[in-house]
């Protein structure tokens, strides 16, 4: 079937079997390799991206459900010259080790901050359930708090 959607702001349409996981369309058809395969069962979060600003584990998300929607991947989150607050915080805290799971964590964090601009440690514990085998959790927690600060600094103050 033909599925049309936006990815990182750009319109795309693919001709593919509708139950194909979104992950494989993003990686192998659209050649955006930043979103990772970890388990194929939505258990590790390495494949996390955004569909209409919601964090989604794309390995278990049939591509047919993105029809007409907006998909954002790590490549669309921000660039070196204009990083997303989460990416800036990740750089400042030097979070990644092997780095493989990190896009998934950053996408999950960006979605968290979108809804909850000032998450507590408990919010982080309850929301960020991805797996990092290098166990960079200690720095990730610091980076999530730092990202919240950066986001606040970047937000223009509204007139009273």
């Amino acid at each position: 079937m033909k599925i049309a959607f936006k990815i990182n702001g750009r319109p795309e349409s693919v001709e593919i079997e509708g139950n194909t996981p979104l992950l494989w369309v993003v990686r192998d058809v659209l050649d955006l390799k930043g979103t990772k395969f970890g388990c194929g069962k939505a258990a590790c979060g390495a494949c996390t991206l955004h569909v209409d600003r919601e964090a989604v584990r794309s390995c278990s998300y049939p591509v047919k459900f993105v029809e007409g929607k907006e998909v954002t991947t790590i490549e669309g989150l921000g660039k070196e010259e204009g990083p997303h607050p989460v990416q800036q915080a990740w750089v400042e805290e030097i979070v990644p080790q092997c780095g493989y799971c990190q896009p998934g964590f950053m996408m999950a964090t960006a979605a968290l901050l979108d809804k909850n601009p000032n998450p507590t440690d408990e919010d982080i514990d309850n929301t960020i359930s991805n797996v990092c085998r290098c166990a960079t959790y200690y720095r990730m927690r610091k980076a999530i708090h730092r990202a919240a600060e950066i986001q606040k600094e970047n937000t223009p103050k509204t007139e009273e």
Partner: protein
Amino acid sequence: MAKEKKRISRRRFLVRGGLGTVGVLAVGTYLFRNPIRRKIAEMANTGEAPYIGNTDTPIIWFEITEDNKVLFHSPKVEMGQGTFTGLAQMAADELEIHMGQIQVVHAQTGSGNIDGFSTGGSTSISSLWLPLRELAATMREMLRTEGGKKLGMEVSSLTIADGIVSGGGSKMSYAEIAKGVTEWKVPDTPTLKAIEDYKFIGKPVPRVDLDAKVFGAPIFGMDASMPDMLYAAVVCPDTIGATFLGADTSRAATMPGVVKIVKEEDFIGVVAASRMEAENAKNAIKVDWKVDRVWQTKDIEEMIQVGAGRPYIIQAEGKTERILDGSEGVITAEFTSPLGAHAQLEPNGAVASVVDGKATVMMSTQVISFTRGQIADRLGIDAEDVNIVPTFLGGGFGGRLHTPMGMQAAVLSKAVGKPVKCFLNRKEEFQNDSFRPPTHHVLKAKLADDGLIAAIQHQVSSGDVMFGSPLVPKIVHGILGADLGAWRGGMIQYRGIPNYQAVSWRVKLPFATSWWRSLGLLANTFAIESFMDELAIRAGKDPVQFRLDQIQDDKAGNRLKEVIRTAAEKAGYSDEIVDGRAMGFAASTDASTPVAQIAEVSVEGKEIKVHRVTCAIDPGLAINPDQIRAQCEGSIIMGMSAAMHERMYVEDGQLQPIIYGPYEMALMKHAPKEIEVVILENDDKPGAVGEPPLGPIGAAVANAVFRLTGQRLRSMPLKLT
């Protein structure tokens, strides 16, 4: 594997033009000449491994690019441990360039600069500490000499900064100097700079791969692709000991997208147009497996008992056995650790292209040289005709010290005449891992009248570690007897004790067990340091002082004492329970790096919560303090994961679980919110970092739990009853 016999003179620097480069300096030196077993034994004992090069020619270490940058071809792979950054710091300092001018790439086997053995054992920085700086300094002096010629200046009057040679008011960049030079004058190895003169060594410079990893660059094996590439899946057995009898592929052959089904003697692969089509077709293959015995967890547990395998005494001082003979006054304790999986996030696999008898294979592997040989042997071609293009590893942890997927992808590519990408799925990863073996420990000791230990014995029974690795020739098993990997961390480090002995029992399990980050260190330290805690309590002594009192006065002993004192002081160690929290102490020495850790723990219901960990480590000279901290933080939480959560089991012949979640691991919610790392540098050269800090954490947590609950937890994963 064809081996180049000719020795390359260290004076023979090759220079050649390359694509987009003005000069390629190739330095062949530091050849691996000694029998492999000696190296392995040295590594296991002290962690002081010399760099093991190879005999290919030319060997390309550095390239100077048009824009006056230096490409460093690393013979070691980057799997998160920060090696690229540390090596770049070492090279940049002697090359007189700044960090922005050096770019690190994985050396392809075609470039010659591959490691003869592996990336592992926490030896990448220490083994290249001398050779890499010498090579960089030599190249700097060659450039200075040529620069003098081109500028018409006396060489001794020239200064170098940021890759620019200056003197007498004129200057020239390395790139300009290298342009057109066909014959280089090679100096004797220059004197290296004094450590205090280094600008980058010793500083917490950011990781060189940071941007690539934060902005999603396609750097991993699974991100690799080649033009016109097909996708493949291989059939893996899901039952222990299953041997392949045959397969019915008739239905699979008709499935959508299938290009070819390739039947080999030892595996079946499906090549299709997409990954999903290859997976679906693979699942439609009916395989006839022969299974002689249906294994269960209890079978494995029975095999792994101390006394069931073959014993080797690995450490002996005094009259331990005589003193511990009989039961009077002898304190005995037993501990166990479970089977553990690597569970690295990037599955194993490769992208291979085999055309006209030449293979190109892009993949994540810790064993480039071995994998090249495996592919060449299978294809019946020379090793020189196999170019392994190493990628960043989505986790290594020892799990990629055997990477046969490179060979399988190459065989499949050859069969279809196109590039093929072939990766395992997660179930296959969990069931075909080379696991961390389960262990059983028996400890015995007797206290003297002064409350110190009169004699102590540690017996460990373990599945194979080193002997489970295809890297280690069978002949070595007989020569060494005991498995160096299994007993890593199993010796008694308190050599002030007058009588001590360590015994390693070897057990061959019916599935692959091998290298897992820190090898036996985590389990052995859990057992010994839990027992030391029991003995201190029995003797009525402070557990920190109890250890300090029994460490010998030599360099290793003094370094160990210092990390113990430092950790205790930083954490404010106390035996008291304060606000429902208790501290647990443990220390280990691995590959000459001593580490002490204190875990601050509370118990809520049956849940053990680790709030704060203090870690003192002495890896010697610290090349990059930030990355040493990162390795300690990661090791502490990965160690907690293995010690408190993870366990593989065997059910009706199958290794289980097969997915994250059921394979419980430490997650964000389990990670301590405070980790303090103190780095001591009581050696003038860099030592091991990537594995030693994994040692103490299991025992530190268990020792804290005992103070809180009175329960002595004797089995990993640690669970309260």
